[in-house]
């Protein structure tokens, strides 16, 4: 019989196996008032408690940077859904981090559209540059590199995504170097608008005047490696 580690966690009478692993102190596992308001909004958007689970997991991941069991338990308590259900959802999706990752997670697309346009070249270049293999994290805890499936930007291949956030399109080795320098200086790339080829003549190449960074679809490089 597992003793509840903390009165605030809803524990069933009998918990099989090990107690929920702890990575965060109780004092950390709280939502701010704003976050609680946000959660209430999310819950109101769905007819059942379960509906809000994905959005609240996202909030938790953004807050705690990953989803260890105690954070999953915290989410489960928040939306009043059993731990096992929330755990089931968290483990179904690749973007929820079930283990601790680097501060910056670089998802390099190597799916076929990028594969044939140098996606693996970029992956291997990063592996070499950072001295780690895909799936690993650098010793300083700054970078994790991962092989991603199609991110829906095949026209601007090769490309990558930084920590489930902005896309970096039309990658070259120089661009990767610049990105790493920026990230080390804590500068996240911003949103980049990709101009439609048909707009280059019709709209002078920029459709959105409110976006700072604009790029075009470019002729992809010849890939050196394809696996």
């Amino acid at each position, binding site marked *: 019989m597992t003793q509840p580690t903390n009165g605030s966690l809803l524990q069933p009478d009998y918990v099989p196996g090990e107690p929920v692993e702890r990575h965060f102190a109780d004092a950390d596992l709280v939502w701010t008032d704003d976050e609680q308001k946000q959660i209430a909004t999310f819950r109101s*958007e*769905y*007819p*059942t*408690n*379960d*509906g*809000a689970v*994905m*959005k609240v*997991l*996202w909030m938790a991941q953004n807050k705690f940077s990953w989803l260890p069991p105690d954070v999953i338990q915290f989410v489960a308590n928040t939306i009043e*859904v059993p731990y096992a*259900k929330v755990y*089931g*959802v968290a483990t*179904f*999706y*690749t*973007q*929820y981090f079930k283990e601790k990752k680097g501060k910056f997670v670089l998802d390099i697309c*190597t*799916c*076929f*559209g990028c*594969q*044939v*346009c140098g996606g693996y070249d970029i992956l291997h270049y990063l592996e070499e540059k950072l001295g780690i293999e895909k799936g690993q994290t650098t010793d300083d805890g700054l970078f994790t590199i991962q092989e991603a*499936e*199609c991110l*829906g*930007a*095949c*026209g*601007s*291949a090769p490309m990558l*995504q930084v920590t*489930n*956030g*902005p*896309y970096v399109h039309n990658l070259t080795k120089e661009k990767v170097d610049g990105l790493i320098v920026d990230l080390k200086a804590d500068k996240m790339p911003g949103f980049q*608008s*990709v101009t*439609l*080829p*048909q707009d280059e003549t*019709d*709209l002078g190449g*920029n*459709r*959105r*005047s*409110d976006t700072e960074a604009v790029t075009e*679809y*470019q*002729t*992809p490089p*010849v890939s050196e490696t*394809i*696996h």
Partner: protein
Amino acid sequence: MAEAPSLITGESKAGDWRNYERVILPPVKDLHKIEVYEEDGGYSALKAVVKDGKFDPAALTDEVKASGLRGRGGAGFSTGLKWSFMPPVDPEKPRYLCCNGDESEPGTFKDRQIFEYNPHLMIEGIILACYAMTIKTCYLYIRGEYIDYVHHVQKAVDEAYAKGYIGKNILGTDFSTNIVVHYGAGAYICGEETSLMESLEGHRAYPRIKPPFPAQSGCWGMPTTINNVETLACVPLIVNRGAAWFSGIGPERHPGPVLYGISGHINKPGVYEFPTGMLIRDLIEVAGGVRGGKSVKAVVPGGSSTPPLTWDMAKDATMDTETLREAGSSMGTAGLCILDEDTDMVAFTRRIAHFYHHESCGQCTPCRDGTGWLEKLLSRIESGEGYTRDLDLLLEICDQMEGRTVCALADAAAWPVRWGIRRFRDEFAARCKADSFASSEQGDGSVEAQPVL
């Protein structure tokens, strides 16, 4: 019985496409802003229908049916017909619309451009669809990786709420509807309609067995219709310009404007808007031709699950369901990947197999295990360790997968492998060691002790 004449004529079915006027992504600066969209005639379809009574719900459904609009999400089903499957309104039962913006089919990147450049067209289409089917809630499902675009779309939705285009008593009428933006967290399978519904409900996104179809039992067991983003974006255009205008664009049986996402070995990749029925050849031409002036080895016409075509099969084919079916593939999502003469088809096919293996939800044994075996065998062939007999084994695995699973992911995984091998067999065979099941003699004459997979 007389054979129907071939549709692969080498003639374009897109009419005067060189002077085509773009309508889904028209050349208007800052169209994503609601004021600009309104100035460009935006939300006038909504006003005409909801406020001025241009169509009642049934008439709107009929108009969409008459336009010949077919789903742009992959299956190409008639949109008006799908809407008409919704059961009569039961005040006790909520009903839902899902707008499918999961866009995870490799090779597809068109819906992203709608989110970025013309979100209000999609929103207007959603409200019109809700009106046609008397739906009070739409869930707009966007893949989690598109989080930047989720923010863009959420902003557009908020603007539309503020202007009274969404929400309670739209434009002062007694019609009300809400849009909830939902985002995923990285799972291709969530694009499959019933999986998307499971995901919305907050469960592991396992697809459901059909029947019952979503119109009977969809989200939370209630009547639900699901349409792709681009499909819904066509609806305001049909209302404004009429079904006859829409059906007059491109070939008769698969008409309308379409966003082609062109990628691969091409000089000017990107999303291009043209009528359906474009010659693949013309699309390559507008996209600047093949990189480095090379010749084309293969074309994947509509995303990873559509069988690759050899250049001989593709060069005279047009981009519409009927013609591509005859050519030996399908329209899918109209995301074309152009592969030049230097492409390693074995590595390419292996990478597709890896994708499906990674994305199989694991519910059905033929899919969960089959996708794994496809990848393993293809990797072995790629590394030069495979045997000729492996090719037939691969085809046999495809036989075991197709049509035997809950959802179509298993078929989508098997097709590119099956047709890749059938159409590029020499290239696959050249990588294999000679052997067959009959003898366990290997290419070098030695006898293999234990055939290992």
